[in-house]
C-alpha cells in the first residue's frame, strides 16, 4: 500500500508548477484540491503531454487552479475564460484546452460565453466546480444557489430560482455533459478522462463543498459532513432513469448525462479553409 | 465677414460630382463604379464618399466623387461641378450645392419641379425598365450619360468598371444600359446644341 501512495503523490507532484509558492489560496478541506488531483490522474492516464495542454480560468476560488498546474495557464477575467479559450483553441487546434470555472463565473457573468461555447461545439473541456455560492468574495448568492438557501446577499433566504448547469449546456448544444461530486473521486477521474477524450464541447459539473460559506450559512456542517451529504444525495444516472420526479427531488444525478456526435467547430472551419484554398 | 474670407477662392483643381436619389437606386454603387472608371486606369486621384441613413431601402441617398490631378485634401464635395438627381427630394436637397455653371442631370420623369431651366433631363428609370430590361440598371444609364455629357471618363473605362462590378449574369443588361446612356445623352447634347 505504501508504494501505491508514493506513486500517486509522485504523479501529482509531476503536474504541479515547480516554482509556484504554496500553500494554495483554498481553505483546508475545500473540494477544489480533490478536483485538481482527479484531473491530474485523468490527464496522466490519457497520456497528454504537459506542453500540449492549455488550461484557462476566470475569476473565483476554483479559477486559481491553472496557476498551480504545470501547463500553459491563462488566468483571465471574470466570466470570460471560454472566450479566451475559444481564441486559444481556434488559433492552435492541436492544444488540449481545459477551462476551470465556477458557478458564478460560468453561469452569471459568463453565461453568454457559456451557452455560445456549447452552441459552437468547440473542442474545449469545461470543468464547472459548483459550490452554490461565491466563495472568493465571501459567500454571496450565485445562479446555482438553491431557492430559500442563505448567503450574504440572500440573508432572508434566496427568492430566485437556480440554473441546472448540465441541462443548460445540453440544451445549448454541448455534445458531452456529465456530473459528479467531490465525494466520487474515481468516478470524477473517469468522467474527466472521457470528457477530454470527447471531440467537441464537453462540460463536467462537479458539485463541491464550500463549508466556509455555504456550509456555515446553511448549517450543513464542516467539509466532511458536506461531502458525506453529497454521497447520500447522489444517484447514478442509470438508477435515476427508473426514479420518479418526486423521488429525484433534491438528488444529485451523477455520471455521463448526455453525449452526442456532432461536427466540431475547428474541424468545420478547417473544411472551409481547405475548400476555399482548393478553389483558388 | 473678415478680411480673409473675402480673399479666398474655392479650389479649381478638383472636379466634384454628387450622385443622389433614394436608397435602393444604387447611387453609392454608381459612385464606386465612376471612381474606379476614372481612377484605376488613369493617373488622377479619386475620393468617393457617401452618407446614408440606417434604412437599406428608401430615404435620401447621396454619394460624392471628387477627382483631381493633385492630392485631394478634403474628401467630400465643397461646390459641386455636377449633380445627378434621380428624385425630386434629392434635387431639392442638393441643388443649392451646385455651383453656378455646374452640370445638372435629372431623371425628368421622377422630377417634375425644376429650380432652373439649365439641366439635362433623361428618363433614366423608364429607360432602364422599358428598354434595358431591368429597373436596377437606371444608375448605369445615368453613369453613361454623365460620361457622354462631361467627358470625365471614356466609354471603354466606364464599360470595364461597370462589368467588373456587375453581378453574374447581368453583363448584357449592363452593356445595353451603357449603350442607351451614351446614345440618349448624345441625342440630348445635339438637341441642346
Amino acid at each position: 500500500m505504501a508504494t501505491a501512495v508514493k506513486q500517486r503523490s509522485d504523479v501529482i507532484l509531476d503536474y504541479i508548477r515547480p516554482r509556484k509558492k504554496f500553500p494554495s489560496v483554498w481553505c483546508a478541506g475545500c473540494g477544489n484540491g480533490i478536483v485538481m488531483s482527479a484531473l491530474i490522474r485523468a490527464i496522466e492516464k490519457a497520456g497528454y503531454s504537459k506542453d500540449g495542454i492549455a488550461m484557462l480560468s476566470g475569476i473565483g476560488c476554483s479559477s486559481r487552479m491553472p496557476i498551480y498546474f504545470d501547463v500553459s495557464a491563462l488566468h483571465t477575467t471574470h466570466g470570460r475564460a471560454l472566450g479566451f479559450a475559444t481564441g486559444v483553441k481556434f488559433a492552435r487546434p492541436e492544444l488540449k484546452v481545459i477551462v476551470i470555472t465556477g458557478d458564478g463565473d460560468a453561469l452569471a457573468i459568463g453565461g453568454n460565453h457559456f451557452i455560445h461555447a456549447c452552441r459552437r461545439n468547440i473542442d474545449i473541456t469545461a470543468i464547472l466546480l459548483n459550490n452554490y455560492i461565491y466563495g472568493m468574495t465571501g459567500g454571496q448568492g450565485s445562479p446555482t444557489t438553491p431557492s430559500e438557501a442563505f448567503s450574504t446577499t440572500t440573508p432572508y433566504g434566496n427568492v430566485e430560482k437556480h440554473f441546472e448547469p448540465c441541462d443548460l449546456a445540453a440544451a445549448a448544444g454541448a455534445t458531452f455533459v456529465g456530473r459528479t461530486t467531490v465525494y466520487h473521486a474515481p468516478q470524477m477521474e473517469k468522467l474527466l478522462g472521457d470528457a477530454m477524450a470527447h471531440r467537441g464541447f464537453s462540460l463536467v459539473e462537479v458539485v463541491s463543498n464550500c463549508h466556509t460559506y455555504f456550509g456555515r450559512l446553511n448549517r450543513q456542517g464542516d467539509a466532511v459532513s458536506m461531502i458525506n451529504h453529497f454521497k447520500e444525495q447522489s444517484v447514478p444516472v442509470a438508477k435515476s432513469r427508473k426514479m420518479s420526479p418526486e423521488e429525484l427531488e433534491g438528488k444529485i444525478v451523477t455520471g455521463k448525462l448526455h453525449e452526442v456526435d456532432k461536427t466540431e467547430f475547428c474541424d468545420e472551419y478547417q473544411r472551409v479553409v481547405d475548400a476555399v484554398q482548393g478553389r483558388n | 465677414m473678415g478680411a480673409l474670407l473675402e480673399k479666398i477662392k474655392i479650389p479649381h483643381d478638383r472636379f466634384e460630382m454628387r450622385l443622389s436619389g433614394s436608397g435602393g437606386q444604387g447611387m453609392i454603387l454608381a459612385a464606386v463604379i465612376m471612381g474606379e472608371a476614372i481612377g484605376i486606369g488613369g493617373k488622377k486621384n479619386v475620393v468617393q464618399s457617401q452618407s446614408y441613413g440606417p434604412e437599406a431601402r428608401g430615404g435620401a441617398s447621396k454619394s460624392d466623387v471628387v477627382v483631381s490631378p493633385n492630392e485631394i485634401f478634403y474628401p467630400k464635395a465643397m461646390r459641386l461641378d455636377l449633380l445627378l438627381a434621380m428624385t425630386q427630394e434629392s434635387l431639392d436637397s442638393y441643388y443649392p450645392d451646385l455651383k453656378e455653371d455646374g452640370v445638372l442631370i435629372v431623371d425628368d420623369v421622377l422630377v417634375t419641379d425644376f429650380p432652373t431651366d439649365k439641366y439635362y433631363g433623361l428618363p433614366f428609370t423608364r429607360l432602364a425598365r422599358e428598354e434595358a430590361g431591368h429597373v436596377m440598371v437606371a444608375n448605369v444609364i445615368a453613369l453613361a450619360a454623365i460620361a457622354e455629357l462631361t467627358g470625365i471618363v471614356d466609354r471603354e473605362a466606364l464599360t470595364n468598371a461597370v462589368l467588373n462590378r456587375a453581378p453574374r449574369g447581368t453583363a448584357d443588361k449592363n452593356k445595353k444600359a451603357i449603350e442607351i446612356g451614351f446614345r440618349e445623352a448624345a441625342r440630348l447634347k445635339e438637341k441642346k446644341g
Partner: protein
Amino acid sequence: MPDKKRVLMQGNHACVAGAIYAGMRFYAGYPITPSTEVAEGCARRLPEIGGRFIQMEDEIGSIAAVIGASVAGLKSMTATSGPGYSLMVENIGYAYMTETPCVIINVQRGGPSTGLPTKVSQSDTMQARWGTHGDYTAIAVAPSSVAETVTETIRAFNLSERFRTPVTLLLDEVIGHMREIITLPEPGECEVVERVKPTCPPEQFIPFEMTESLVNPMPAYGEGYRNVITGLTHDTMGFTTNKPVEIAPKLDKLRNKIMRHVDEITRLRTEFIDDAEILFISYGSVARAAFQAAKIAREAGAKVGAIQLQSIWPFPDKELMELCARCRKVIVGELNMGQVAIEVERVLPRDTEVHTLLRYDGEILTPMQLLEKLDEVL
C-alpha cells in the same frame, strides 16, 4: 517594372489589407456599424490564406478570443465602434497587464450610448487612452486617408509586437467608409515586426524579467514554456503578488517600456508650416479639412499651416511644442467636445493662444468652417 495596380479601396477594407500584410491571421469580432466591413473583409480573406475568423457572441468575447489567439501565437485583431469598445475595455486592460500584443480597430461613431451609428465622430479619443481602469500607457494611432489606413494598421501591429501591448487604431466613420485610389504595398516594401520568442530553455525562462528594454520575449502556448499568465498583478515569474516592492515596478514597466520610446511612436504630418503664424491641429478626417483650409488660406496670403496627429497616444508633447514654438495661435479642430484640445492646452506655453473648433452633431468639419474660425481669430 510595371506600375503598381491602382485600386479604389474603402478605409475599412484598407484596414484588412494592412492587417494581413502585417501578418494578422486571427480575427474575432461582433458586427457594429460603422466598422462591420472590417469583419466582412476578414471573414472572406482569412480562410484564403489559412487564417481564422470567428464572429463571437459579443465584444467582450471577441477581445477575449483575440487575446487568447495572441498567447497561442497568432497576430490577432478585432474591430468595433464606440459601444463595442466600451464593452471591450476590461479585457483590453487584461492585455495591458499581461503584455499581450493585439490590435483593436475603433471606427468611431457618435455617442454616448447607442448614439449615431452611421454618423462620424472622434469622441472615443480619450477612451482609447483611459478606457480601462488602472494605470497604464496606451498607444493609439489615427490615420486620415485610405492609404494611411494601410500603413498605420501595419504600424499598429508593429508597435503592438515591439512593445507587447494592445494598440488602438482610431478610425472615424468618414475614413472607414470612404474610398480612395491607392496602391497596396508590395511584400518587403513596409517593415513588419515579428514577435520575439525566448531562446533560453524553459526552466530558465523568466516571463516578465526586468530587462533593459523592459519588453520580454513571448512564447506561444504549446512551445514548451508552460508559463502562467494572469491579470492579477504579478511578479517577474508571472505569479500573483501583493508585495509593494513588486507591484510598483510592474506598473513602472508598463509605462516605461513605451514612454522611453515616444519619439519613435510619434508620427505627425505637417503641411504649409514654414513661417506659419497660425496652425491647425487635428487628426482623422478633420485633418483632411484642415489641410484643405490651410491650402486655401495660403493662396489667399495668410500664413497658416496644419499639423495632423497620425499618432495620438502617447501624446506628442515634445514634437508639438517644437512645431508650435514660433506660432502665436493654434486652432484645434475635432469631432468631440475638445478631447485633444485639453492635451494641446496642457502642452503649449501659456502665451500661445489655443482656439478650438468643435463639432459633435454627426457631421464632419468643413474647410469653410475652419476658414471662418481662422478669420475670426486672425
